[in-house]
């Protein structure tokens, strides 16, 4: 990934600040990486190199840790983070269908970020609100009982322009869809059980 101008210097100063707060001990590796990611949103290459030098272990060992744990990301996250719960209850109520819908709309796969760095899409393990399944975390706010039709609504709410071209079927009928799907009885019905 190409860094933008000034990014390298920013990374270096942030990592230097973080390193000051920890012992230079390889046991501190996880907390250090967590702190770096907490500040930068991801683990840039340069940051991992600096951490490796500080705790005196081979760079590749830092990389091993950075690529082993789910928490760490090697690329910057999107401005909006969408996390689809893949816990058991959400799975049973169609979490994977919701994931499919986001993938289709954002044209990325789970774990990826859109090219414009606006959205990233992830799966998370159980968020613990199984009664509200399926659940999506939109910038850490919970969206409960999400139906695929709600996906467009969520993305619109985040300022995504949905040019409704049907990439997946390749039919180019109807250049502009007149309206977003209205809120249909599904919601009420679902809530009333």
């Amino acid at each position, binding site marked *: 990934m190409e860094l933008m101008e000034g990014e390298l210097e920013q990374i270096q100063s942030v990592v230097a600040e973080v390193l000051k707060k920890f012992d230079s*001990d*390889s*046991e*501190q*590796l*996880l*907390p250090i*990486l*967590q702190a770096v990611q907490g500040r930068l949103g991801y683990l840039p290459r340069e940051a991992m190199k600096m951490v490796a030098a500080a*705790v005196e272990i081979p760079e590749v*060992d830092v990389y*091993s*840790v950075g690529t*082993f*744990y*789910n*928490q*760490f990301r090697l690329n910057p996250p999107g401005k909006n983070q969408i996390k689809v719960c*893949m*816990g*058991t*209850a959400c*799975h*049973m109520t*169609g979490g994977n*269908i919701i994931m*499919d*819908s986001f993938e*289709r709309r954002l044209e990325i796969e789970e774990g990826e970020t859109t090219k414009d760095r606006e959205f990233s899409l992830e799966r*998370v*393990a*159980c*968020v*613990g*609100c*199984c*009664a*509200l399944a399926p*659940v999506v975390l939109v910038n850490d706010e*919970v969206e*409960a009982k999400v*139906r*695929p*039709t709600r*996906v*467009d609504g969520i993305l619109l709410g985040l300022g995504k322009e949905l040019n409704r071209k*049907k990439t*997946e*079927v390749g*039919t180019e009928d*109807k250049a502009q*869809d007149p309206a977003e*799907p*209205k809120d*249909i*009885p*599904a919601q009420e*019905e*679902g809530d009333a*059980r």
Partner: protein
Amino acid sequence: MSTDVTVMESKYQELKKRASEKAAVLQEKPYVMVGTATCGRAAGALKILDVFKEEVQKHQVEAEVMEVGCLGHCYAEPMVIVYKPGFPALCYGNVDEGIASRLVSDFLVGDDPCFEFAMAALEPNDFFPTFADYPRGVYEQKIVLEACGLIDPEEIDHYIARDGYSALVRALAAEPGAVVDEIKDSRLRGRGGAGFPTGKKWEICRNADAGEKYVICNADEGDPGAFMDRALLESNPHQLIEGLIIAAYAVGASQGYIYVRAEYPLAIDRLRTALQQARDNGLLGDNILGSGFSFDIRIFQGSGAFVCGEETALIASIEGKPGIPSHRPPFPAVSGLRGKPTLIDNVKTLSYVPHIMRNGAEWFKGIGTPESPGTAVFALAGKVVGTGLVEVPMGTSLRTLIYDVGNGIKDDKGFKAVQIGGPSGGCLPESALDLTIDFDSLQHAGAMMGSGGLVVLDEDDCMVEIARFFLEFTQNESCGKCTFCRLGTKQMLEILTDITKGQGKPEDLELLWELAEDIKAGSLCGLGKTAPNPVLSTLRFFRDEYEVHIHEGRCPARKCKDLISYRIVPQKCSKLCDACIASCPVEAVFTRPDMLKEIDLEKCVKCDNCLVTCLPLYDAVEKVSPPITVAVEGGSASE
């Protein structure tokens, strides 16, 4: 240490006095408790909290608005407790902003407790039933969950007022060996899943000869459907801290860790606050309560790897390495963190400890079954009405748990199976409903206590697909070190995926079974050894479903996407309603010249939306399996 006993006692009595006074003051005024654990927040509890604060201010009511943890009734979140002197404390569920403001204006200002919104009272009274008057309350017996949702987790005095930390005083007054004996005597078994006798583990660690020892609380809860550890951390962190200090004293450790998933930020916050309060009150740190025993606890944030629930992987992770398990022996109790004897216990296990120290081993043995004393905590999920966290005595039958405690199956559907123990557990059929739950009976039946996830499946759930789901989870979480787990689970997953797509081969079932057995016997760690359980148990009890997928290309539950089609039944379609068309995210539903709706099967992504959307009055959308083959012009394959 007998000279210190009186010092400790008096120091504790001071704390207790302060806490009791505070508790008494609390009862003099109205108060509102909002459950703001993660589950409550997900349902909007913070908004409700704000409404209460605003309304209380607006109406100038002198009432305290507090945050508490989780009461376990997930289906009714957000939940609040409202107390006003002269009334019993009342609990309200599914509270929205309107109800919240009415509870202030009508109840706190007026004198109408709004019974129409109330779920239960907290104590017996003449007005309203209590939780104990419902079936769930009859069968539940709360020990570790008892105070959850009733105390402010960020207020140590709430815990102390309920005799919190008195067990620590009892422990510190005794010899460490006596504490180990008490736990051994109680026959407490590890709640992390396998049920190893806790006291025995403590004894091994205590007897290990080393200058330095560690205790670690394993709060790396990773089961995709269990969240009781998080609930305990968020609702009653002091209970766990007290248990961990007692464990440290018993085995002779001076440093402790709580290994929490970084995905649990609220739990980490509340834990951090609780640890600081414990230190500020002389309950943690140097010379605890003047006993001469020093011990401190650090929080270690796990970085999201299910395998770190495995003790050796957890240790590797604390040491700054990838969480890859290593061969045992040596067991951590002999050689663990930094090569030193290390005791690792689960959150629930440690949360029982203060209760056992306070009430005695005999009391504990009086609950549950002889081989598995105490209670079991389950996260009820799936097609059960009363989802949430429940705590029942060991030995409760599955039937009681699902039909009485959990209030039965949703939408009056037929029960099909119950999955217990998450990715390491198994699926049990209807014939197992009268099985009484304990560590051994579950294992014997082909499931496992595991982390306590309990998912109820109904007639609409496909057993192959459920097995595939859990296997996909473990496969994703496999560290990749050992052949059987890395490649074996992948191989099994490929086979299962093929079966759910109708591409299974008759000989696959034999291969699946053989691989499952070899992975169980051949894997390096517990993750791999238990990974095949969901497949083995479904193969054992629901083999016919596998066979129908393979031989008939059909999914009996109409769940497997590749084996179903959606269609609109012309005789049922109303013609005048467009709901299905609006609901389709890919414009696959269209109106025919005769106004009937139809689904273009080539465009359909099988999202289920039209089926859910179609009004029950018409009920015109249906799923069919095997799928309709798109051969007829225009996709009209309906008649």
